């Protein structure tokens, strides 16, 4: 719609209709109504009624009317263009005097040429009326525009244009007097903001001394002064303006000057930013406390920075002298992000030290307005797409098609987003909506994003299997182009140096770091660490500290991923450096990663608290837009607590970590799966098998969606799920899951030994001895050949095979285990466990005891292994009917609170059964029954037909038989 209204009020109250009722105005009013009528008739009856004329213009239609006049759209046949013609409506002043003044002012306005003021083409008099022909602007006024919530930077950019218009009015020695959102129009298409002339009738020539002192010094208390004859010359007889936007001095009936315009401008901008007026209630004319309005606190929520608010508060000062000296000064402040100032302060320290120039100048950094915005997407043309596709197919074998299917739409989307962001930034700048300094920052940021993307595309073209398998994860890890909109964050996190030559070099090095980040997420950790080191060196040579901090954190991160404990060095340095350069997000990332290094790579779980505290403080203060940093912190804290066996705290931290991951889209799939898996492990340890399994199943689902079901990473996760299912006694499900995983390995690829042995174990647990042997045979080709180092899994293989044989009463497997033990040493846990179990199965408990006694408290074993050895020793003692010794070994293994137990459910049930037998043997029937029942309770959730469950029930039944009274009801089983 076109909007060109002389007051801009789109809700013209009825009261205003009365205001024009003065006899001397009737003629203009009548003229307006007549034009309106004839223009309408000309539209309805084009053959009979010709368009009315105003000057040389053909009147088309009425577009607005208000207190100050009526505006028609019209056609200028001579210049073949559309114009707006205003018929001035006159107010209450002596006609001749006013008439002359209006004409003079209108002509002064016509000389005013400024992009942010509607251009006046012509001012003329006809039949004693004053007409103004001006530029016709198609658009919406700011009142309408700001009804929708807008980002604060956009609001600021739009209002700064209006402010430039006001400043131009002031420069011409005039005052606008009634600035409000209705009086500025934002042109459709290019977004240029123009002040409408509607201040016109209110524009007045400055008093001879326009200084603020002259306006205020004579009445410093702010008391209304009675209008003197002098005042009458410079102000109309009554208060004119819109109270909500009027300065206190205007409301007191004093003359308005440039400071009053500044006040109105600030009211309007405040309203646009915060969605409400800065004062509690709007004053009404005639109220004695008109200018005594209360300031309201703006809502915090829109995220308008504090500095903007402080600038506006000064502009809204009650006393004109306390405001900015001019609109120019105000606008300068509004154009000044503190982040820019910080950048300047920083560059002072570096500028003198420059040695490197290199003659490289990047056009982007010079912030020249482009003449046109072309689509720049060389980073993703059909050729590159095809090369990437080919690379993926050649490298990844059977997972390739699935990978590409998931990958290619993600690549397309990301490339589109990058191209859109480029175009928007360019267009915005061309139209003057994006200031030069912001434009340069955004473009540099987008160039970094494009570099990160290009690295991915290029790597796909010459991909190895690892690259392809990580490609989906990598594309999701690329920072989104939208991050480049936040100029304040860009300035704070990647401040550009002031020297153009250095700036150009730094911009290139930052692009290289973006590539390094991509390489890291593709899994080439060593190479990423190396490239980061190169950037670090160059940054050192440039003496540009912010870049050094960025390079350090990349190097530390890559080393961390490579599981290299040396990661701590660069991460520490990155943290301290980023704290001095105030790169909060860099500091936060370094701090979050230090936790992981300390816990997982340096095994310094005990003194991780300080690292956590530092990281928390930094991440909280970073205002990090990147949720991944927040996620990483909480996830790593969870891991640290878990390692310290603080399960509850760990779970809470993982919950926090999940909360940072965006719900929508697939952006956070990988992170969600990671944390869910971690939670699964903790919950399992806590005995919450069901939740653990559910969480892990969720992780499997989301990873399948992300990576495709054939992805190797999924095999590991699903195999882990099978282990959980097994520990929870759901043997059938576990076997099915694991079989499915194993089937995904196609020759020449061999499934890992541990998975085959785990599968054999599942059959053994179900007493499917043939099945177990078959899986063992599949594992056999992977065993160590003569001359190769022997591993735990070789031991475990032999133990499994021997166990199967022993279950058939065959002792031959034992020999192999003993031979192996002679070379591996007595303490090899796999062999010890295997030999003991086989001996127990074969009914040779004394030999088992003899084997265990020297080892059972060896510091060589971890806590868990030690518990297992105690359990086996207890069982050996029970088998020898040495009840009290057995009880002494067993009872510490089964604390009354099951959550305190570190044993898996099956082992705990075994310990409880052995304990029950030991107690029964000593005649403590009640206690024995209690523990036997507890064993069954521990196996809740196990397959009902599992041997473990059967054995537990047999034990209970046996005890009940040998204990005549009192009869005990066996607990119903699920």
């Amino acid at each position, binding site marked *: 719609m076109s909007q060109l209204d002389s007051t801009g009020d789109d809700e013209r109250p*009825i*009261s205003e*209709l009365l205001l024009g*009722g003065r006899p001397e105005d009737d003629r203009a009013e*009548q003229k307006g*109504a007549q034009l309106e009528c004839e223009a309408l*008739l000309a539209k309805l009856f084009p053959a009979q009624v010709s368009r009315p004329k105003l000057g040389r213009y053909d009147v088309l239609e009425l577009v607005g009317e208000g207190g100050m006049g009526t505006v028609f759209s019209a056609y200028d046949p001579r210049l073949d263009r559309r114009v707006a013609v205003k018929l001035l409506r006159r107010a209450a002043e002596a006609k001749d005097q006013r008439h002359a003044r209006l004409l003079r002012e209108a002509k002064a306005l016509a000389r005013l040429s400024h992009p942010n003021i509607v251009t006046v083409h012509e001012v003329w008099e006809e039949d004693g009326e004053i007409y103004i022909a001006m530029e016709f602007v198609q658009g919406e006024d700011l009142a309408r525009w700001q009804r929708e919530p807008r980002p604060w930077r956009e609001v600021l950019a739009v209002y700064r244009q209006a402010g430039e218009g006001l400043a131009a009015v002031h420069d011409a020695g005039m005052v606008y007097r009634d600035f409000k959102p209705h009086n500025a129009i934002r042109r459709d298409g290019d977004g240029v903001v123009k002040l409408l002339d509607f201040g016109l009738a209110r524009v007045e020539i400055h008093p001879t001394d326009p200084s603020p002192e002259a306006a205020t010094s004579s009445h410093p208390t702010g008391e209304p002064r009675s209008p003197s004859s002098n005042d009458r010359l410079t102000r109309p007889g009554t208060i*004119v303006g*819109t109270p909500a936007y009027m300065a206190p001095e205007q409301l007191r009936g004093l003359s308005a000057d440039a400071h009053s315009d500044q006040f109105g401008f600030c009211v309007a901008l405040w309203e646009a930013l915060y969605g409400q*007026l800065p004062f509690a209630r709007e004053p009404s004319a005639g109220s004695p406390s008109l200018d005594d309005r209360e300031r309201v606190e703006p809502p915090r929520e829109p995220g308008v920075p504090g500095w903007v608010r402080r600038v506006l508060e000064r502009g809204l000062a009650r006393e004109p002298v306390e405001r900015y000296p001019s609109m120019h000064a105000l606008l300068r402040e509004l154009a000044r992000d503190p982040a820019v100032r910080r950048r300047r302060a920083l560059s002072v320290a570096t500028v003198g030290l420059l040695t490197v120039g290199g003659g490289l100048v990047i056009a982007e950094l010079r912030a020249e307005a482009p003449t046109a915005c072309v689509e720049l997407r060389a980073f993703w043309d059909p050729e590159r797409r095809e090369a990437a596709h080919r690379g993926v197919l050649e490298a990844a074998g059977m997972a390739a098609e699935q990978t590409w299917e998931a990958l290619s739409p993600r690549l397309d989307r990301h490339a589109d987003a990058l191209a859109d962001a480029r175009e928007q930034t360019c267009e915005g700048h061309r139209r003057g909506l994006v200031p030069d300094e912001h434009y340069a920052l955004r473009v540099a940021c987008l160039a970094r994003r494009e570099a990160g993307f290009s690295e991915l595309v290029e790597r796909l073209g010459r991909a190895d299997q690892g690259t392809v398998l990580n490609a989906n994860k990598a594309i999701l890890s690329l920072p989104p182009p939208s991050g480049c909109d936040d100029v304040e964050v860009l300035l704070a996190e990647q401040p550009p140096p002031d020297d153009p030559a250095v700036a150009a070099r730094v911009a290139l090095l930052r692009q290289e770091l973006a590539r390094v980040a991509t390489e890291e997420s593709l899994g080439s950790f060593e190479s990423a660490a190396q490239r980061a080191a190169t950037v670090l060196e160059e940054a050192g040579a440039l003496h540009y500290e912010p870049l050094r901090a960025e390079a350090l954190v990349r190097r530390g991160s890559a080393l961390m991923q490579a599981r290299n404990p040396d990661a701590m060095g660069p991460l520490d340095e990155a943290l301290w450096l980023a704290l001095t350069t105030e790169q909060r997000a860099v500091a936060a990332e370094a701090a979050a990663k230090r936790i992981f290094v300390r816990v997982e790579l340096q095994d310094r779980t005990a003194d991780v608290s300080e690292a956590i505290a530092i990281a928390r403080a930094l991440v909280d203060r970073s205002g990090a837009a990147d949720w991944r940093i927040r996620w990483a912190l909480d996830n790593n804290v969870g891991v640290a607590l878990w390692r310290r066996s603080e399960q509850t705290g760990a779970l809470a931290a993982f919950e926090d970590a999940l909360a940072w991951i965006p719900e929508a889209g697939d952006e956070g799939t990988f992170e969600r799966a990671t944390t869910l898996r971690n939670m699964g492990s903790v919950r399992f340890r806590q005995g919450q098998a069901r939740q653990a399994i559910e969480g892990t199943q969720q992780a499997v689902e989301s990873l399948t969606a992300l990576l495709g079901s054939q992805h190797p990473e999924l095999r590991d996760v699903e195999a882990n799920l099978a282990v959980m299912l097994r520990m929870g006694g759901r043997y059938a499900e576990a076997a099915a899951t694991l079989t499915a995983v194993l089937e995904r390995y196609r020759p020449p690829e061999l499934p890992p030994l541990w998975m085959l042995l785990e599968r054999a174990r599942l059959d053994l647990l179900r007493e499917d001895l043939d099945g177990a042997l078959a899986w063992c045979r599949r594992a056999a080709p992977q065993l160590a050949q003569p001359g190769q180092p022997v591993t735990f899994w070789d031991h475990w293989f032999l133990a499994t095979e021997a166990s199967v044989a022993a279950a058939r009463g065959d002792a031959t497997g034992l020999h192999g285990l003993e031979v192996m033990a002679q070379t591996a040493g007595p303490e090899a846990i796999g062999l010890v466990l295997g030999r003991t179990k086989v001996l127990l199965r074969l009914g040779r408990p004394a030999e088992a005891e003899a084997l265990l006694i020297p080892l059972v408290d060896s510091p060589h074993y971890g806590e868990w292994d030690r518990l297992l050895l105690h359990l086996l020793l207890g069982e050996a003692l029970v088998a020898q009917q040495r009840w009290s010794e057995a009880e002494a070994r067993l009872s510490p293994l089964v604390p009354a609170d099951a959550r305190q137990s570190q044993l898996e459910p099956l082992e705990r049930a075994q310990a409880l059964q052995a304990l029950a037998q030991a107690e029964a043997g000593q005649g403590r029937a009640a206690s024995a029954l209690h523990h036997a029942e507890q064993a069954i309770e521990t196996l809740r959730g196990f397959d009902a037909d599992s041997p473990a469950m059967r054995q537990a029930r047999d034990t209970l039944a046996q005890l009940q038989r040998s204990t005549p009274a009192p009869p005990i009801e066996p607990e119903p089983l699920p």
Partner: protein
Amino acid sequence: MDPSSAKHANLVAAWKHGDDGAGAELFRQSYAPVARFYRSKVGPSAPDLVQRCFLRCLEIRHRIREDASFRCFVFGVARNVLLEHYRGQRANARIDFTEQTVEDLSPTPTSELAHDEQSQLLLQALRRLPVDQQIVIELYYWEDLNAREIAEIYEVPEPTVRTRLRRAKLRLEEELCALVQAPQSGAQPSIGLEAWARRLRAELDRSPE
């Protein structure tokens, strides 16, 4: 009866026989009352509604009865267009709401707010009436239509119009009293309703008679 009615009847006949110039003349003469009709109710949307009203008249001119008053015909159409406009506003409740808010936030220029407070009071009171009561009052006082003519517009029996008119006047006086007693105003209606209403009309009226 309005002396212009006979002239109108001739113009209507000519128009229906194809003389668009006669149609233009009819509209020219109806322009001021119709503009006034909308201006008192919809403010800035008035020009738009005037246009819609005339366009509608143009479309359904074959239905104008030559023996009936053209003014009644025009006001009947004007009322229908107005009600459509209100319905459209209500249908789009969001816009309605935001406009309300903006009106609250950006009050009108206070220029000469104190000027003729009494007329202002009457207008305020009028706007507080249900739309049809407002229309009845205005047609009666401003357009000098009698109860029979108003009945023709509303297509109801004449006594019904008289009852409505009485109720509307009572309601208007109530609203006026309420406004006067409201603390923000010190003005008292000092002249009779009729005189007042007529004066208001004169002030609203911007076209030559």
